[in-house]
């Protein structure tokens, strides 16, 4: 059976060039970066090289990069690290953050923090005016993702960064701006200086490196309470023996992402647009979720009326096509996606949403195959649905 992977926002295959770059650190160069001897120096040099590569992807300095075990850890570290320096105060965020930001903020709410969740309207994008009017004198942190993982909408990060600068110029202190760029990295050019963010989260496995590696950009001079303690690694910001092979992989993937971004975006955008046009032509009762223009080029989120997404997912899976209903990280549950709900969609549309996320290695033949399989799957589920008018009458 043909297998077509259209779930690149959940995770990406590892690029063979990345595997090749990391392999020496799984074989001969196995040192612990904390060791003084040559084996340790090899490891340290490798981590330093990767740090420069990751920094370059976002226009940061190498010493502003803290390697972590993934995007989730980086989000926890960013938010708790900044907030734990202060007494409970106020945080502004969007209503469509990834569970790792949402969950971290909820844990702070339990400790007395107040969180304002900004609406995203029907286009899936927050409004700068809303950020401005949510600001309180005790706001310590703004955490807004750069691009959403379910619908791909791109948030006005630069504008928020400018607002934060403005506030600082007016004499405000203790206001920090964090953005989760896990989905955006490698798909949108990122310059931390230009964006004006103080903290920024990255994850390796979304850019063709293995799972289990991430990074937090921490602007020079911004203070942070370490979360994982008991070791001098990462300049005392994150204790624990560095996962050198994963870090090297991350660095290589970052360099490739930077270099190949235009080509990858052009490729996935073309496939995505072709896919969307064909779906529109062949299937009725659809809703495309998220702003059509201000979204990532590789992602398409479609609600199929009358059916529930997971049934469609399984139908497609049985035919070798991998897609997702909502966030991979929360798809263990059957709650209708809170992101789609935040767009103002009714529950049926929220439950019928499917994310197709394309990757650099998808081909036109992949799309041909999905376009063959998908309409049939939708049709057969609708034939079963008591909500639909296409059900089978038997006698």
């Amino acid at each position: 059976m043909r297998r077509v992977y259209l779930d690149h926002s959940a995770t990406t295959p590892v690029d063979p060039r990345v595997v090749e770059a990391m392999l020496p650190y799984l074989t001969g160069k196995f040192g612990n970066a904390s060791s003084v001897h040559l084996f340790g120096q090899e490891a340290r040099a490798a981590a330093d090289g990767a740090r420069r590569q990751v920094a370059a992807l976002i226009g940061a300095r190498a010493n502003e990069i803290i390697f972590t075990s993934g995007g989730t850890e980086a989000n926890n570290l960013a938010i708790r690290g900044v907030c734990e320096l202060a007494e409970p105060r106020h945080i502004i965020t969007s209503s469509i953050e990834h569970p790792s930001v949402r969950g971290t903020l909820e844990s702070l709410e339990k400790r007395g923090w107040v969180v304002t969740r900004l609406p995203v309207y029907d286009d899936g994008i927050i409004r700068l005016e809303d950020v401005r009017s949510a600001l309180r004198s005790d706001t310590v942190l703004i955490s807004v993702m750069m691009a959403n993982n379910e619908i791909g909408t791109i948030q006005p990060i630069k504008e928020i960064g400018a607002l934060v600068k403005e506030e600082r110029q007016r004499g405000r202190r203790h206001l920090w701006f964090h953005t989760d760029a896990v989905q955006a990295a490698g798909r949108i050019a990122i310059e931390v200086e230009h964006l004006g963010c103080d903290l920024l989260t990255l994850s390796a496995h979304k850019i063709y490196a293995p799972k289990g590696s991430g990074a937090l950009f921490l602007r020079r001079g911004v203070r942070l309470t370490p979360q994982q303690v008991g070791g001098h690694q990462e300049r005392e910001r994150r204790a624990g023996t560095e996962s050198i092979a994963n870090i090297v992989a991350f660095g290589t993937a970052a360099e490739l992402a930077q270099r190949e971004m235009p080509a990858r975006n052009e490729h996935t955008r073309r496939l995505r647009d072709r896919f969307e046009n064909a779906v529109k032509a062949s299937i009725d009762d659809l809703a495309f979720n998220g702003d059509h223009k201000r979204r990532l080029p590789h992602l398409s989120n479609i609600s199929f009326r009358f059916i529930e997404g997971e049934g469609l997912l399984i139908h497609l899976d049985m035919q070798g096509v991998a897609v997702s209903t909502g966030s991979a990280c929360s798809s263990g549950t059957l709650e209708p996606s809170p992101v789609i709900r935040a767009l103002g969609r009714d529950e049926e549309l929220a439950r019928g949403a499917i994310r197709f996320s394309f990757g650099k290695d998808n081909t036109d033949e992949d799309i041909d195959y999905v376009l063959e399989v998908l309409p049939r799957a939708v049709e057969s589920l609708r034939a079963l649905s008591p909500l639909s008018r296409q059900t089978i009458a038997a006698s």
Partner: protein
Amino acid sequence: MSYSEAFKDHIANPRNAGELVNANAVAEQTNPVCGDRVRLSLRIRDGRIEAARFLAYGCPPTLACGSALAEMLEGMTIADALKLERKEIVTAVGGLPSRKQHAAALAIETLRAAIQNSVN
């Protein structure tokens, strides 16, 4: 949450899907928590289910349980149908994790409602 072969077969090839035009027992039940819905139409003659069709909306277990139920009902007496239990449906779909048992419960509930509603 990896599904059994029996389960996947019910999803890929639902048994007895649709709505009977000449049904004499019909019910549609909704799970108020998650919005899952099963509709069952039966043709009952002389205390026996001659034909059964289902429609379902909701998570895959709901679809599979609807299919399994409709399949096993055909030819069954009303007396036997009323004795059907949740676990028989669960077995028919190859097992369900505990937090999906409600799908089988909804199927049984719909069956009982349909029999209750039957116009003999």
